[in-house]
């Protein structure tokens, strides 16, 4: 039996926001563990803190309390630059609203994830093109995001996430705004990453993602994770 590595290990996460002097608790006490080759689906209604949780797990924000380990690195114990390096080399994030750079064309958006790594400009471009072709938009490389359909933008976002072959994939509604056919293709690519490379996949969704594709499904309610009903 192969020993499975913890790609994500979060314990006792708390996070609140302050609005007009009033504390709004979003995450009260969240703990989770995700191992290599595993898919975890977190469901929950809009506004329950799913995206906030993803932001914390990706090192984009810091929790008020608790500890988050990403591939063995305590996110609170390292610098912002080290966290950026961790994201570039290990973590891929699919954002709910794609977060494409509006003035960069499709291939440049994908290349952005490869910048400042070990690859040279030619290799970067070739690899980005390969992923865009794999996702079926190899003919739209020079288009700006505004010139692409929502589904095509989502494919560019997925290509940008997978181009680095991350060991941990954090996906926020990866099929939220696309048609069922495109959604199926995206799911296939994510599954392939898990199956072929042993990546860990965490998906947060309010229902657009097929929960059955996950190894485990939990629900975020009132800032606490609970087993999905």
């Amino acid at each position, binding site marked *: 039996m192969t020993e499975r590595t913890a790609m994500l290990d979060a314990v006792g996460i708390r996070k609140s926001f302050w609005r007009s002097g009033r504390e709004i608790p979003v995450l009260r006490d969240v703990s989770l563990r995700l191992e290599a080759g595993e898919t975890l689906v977190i469901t929950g209604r809009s506004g329950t803190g799913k995206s906030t949780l993803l932001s914390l797990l990706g090192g984009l924000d810091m929790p008020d309390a608790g500890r988050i380990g990403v591939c063995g690195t305590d996110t609170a114990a390292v610098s912002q*630059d080290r966290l950026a390096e961790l994201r570039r080399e290990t973590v891929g994030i699919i954002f*709910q609203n794609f*977060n494409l750079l509006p003035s960069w064309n499709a291939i440049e958006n994908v290349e952005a994830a490869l910048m400042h790594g070990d690859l040279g400009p030619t290799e970067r471009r070739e690899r980005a093109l390969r992923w865009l072709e794999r996702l079926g938009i190899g003919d739209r490389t020079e288009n700006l995001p505004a010139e692409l359909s929502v589904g095509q933008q989502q494919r560019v976002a997925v290509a940008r996430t997978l181009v680095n072959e991350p060991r941990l994939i954090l996906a926020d509604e990866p099929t939220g705004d696309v048609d069922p056919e495109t959604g199926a293709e995206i799911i296939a690519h994510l599954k392939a990453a898990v199956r072929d490379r042993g990546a860990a996949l965490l998906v947060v969704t309010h229902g657009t993602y097929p929960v059955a594709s996950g190894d485990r499904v939990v629900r975020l309610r009132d800032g606490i994770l609970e087993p999905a009903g």
Partner: protein
Amino acid sequence: MKALEPMRIAWREQRRRPGRALAVGLGFLLAVASFVGFSLLFRAEHAMEEATLRRVGGYFVAFSPLPVTGIATPPATIPRVRHPDEGFVVGTVLTSLLPRSLGEAIRRSPGVADVVPVLQFRMKSARDTHLFTLGGIDLSRPIAVARTCCAPSEVTAGVFLGQATGTEGPGAMLDNGYASVQEYRVGDRITIGERSFPVTGIVNTGIRPSRSDVYLTWEDAARLLAPRLEEPLGERTGLFLVEVDSASQQEDAMAAVKRITGGVITSYNCFRPAAKVVGLNERAAGIVSVLLYISAVLFGLKTQFGALVERRREFGILRAVGWSGRVLGAQLVWEAVIPAFFGALAGATLGVGAALVAGNQVLGTVGLPIPLAEGWWLGLQGIAFALAGSGLVGLAAAVLLRYSRPADTLRTI
């Protein structure tokens, strides 16, 4: 290569946002062009004031008056003349004699540009016993002589003293007024004391502190005066003409020379208001230059910070996909510096060009050139200022970026 990646990306950003790059570059262009152009014009104007000042008051006369007690204060000595109506003078004041060697000490005084000894002797004419002033000048100091006594450009007939090519030596040069009254022309002969000289030139000097009626070289004057003195002249002179570096230094130079000679200093007081004007203009030029520089930096700051705010989300995305704050910071510095450099380069060229055109229109009328070499030096300064200022702006933006979290800009996550 990786180290240059931020520069390459910053360059790409300039092309991606040509409008903003143009706006930033244009700001620096105007700032540096104004900085260089105004500074250059101020300097040219300052040079003009200095030149004007030198014509009317950038020099003084140092001498030791003849004491009524008959006892001179060292280092001055009393000249013993054979004729009671004759003597060494400055204007109408009889003077003692000073060692010529004081010239070296005077030359080393602060603010002194040059010094020349002059023999100015009031004597009787051999023709009709009228009194006139003989000036014996040291032609080895042509610049000091030109500004304090008489200049080749002031010759109205013949040639300047020492420039005659005849076999009789340099001859005599006459003041225009004296020549007119005594009816001398170039080519005539004038008898001074026991010697006769050809009149080789006539000069109209205007107002000068050591104006004489007849000019001879120092050597001719000394030989001519020898029989009129009861003791050899030796290495002594009647007065020193002192040229100062600038009007603003004249008072200091006068005080220093007075300490050396122990005598009297005479000067035209027009150097005082002129010095103030020059000082005021120098201060004004300095203030304007500093204000322009600060304006350029503030403009860059505003534009750069505007860009930072506008692109907060973009930076957040880039950090989310793995760009470090250090890399983005370097990119921001390059983004600030690149348009500033090209804008400043164009501004420096424009500033020098504009100063040349404007300067030739305004200052060219008084025959003063724009100091072009200074223009390029100012241009380099302007570019350096622009690079330093924009670099600081980029650095400040980079620091702010570094201390923010990506999630601050990606709230929808």
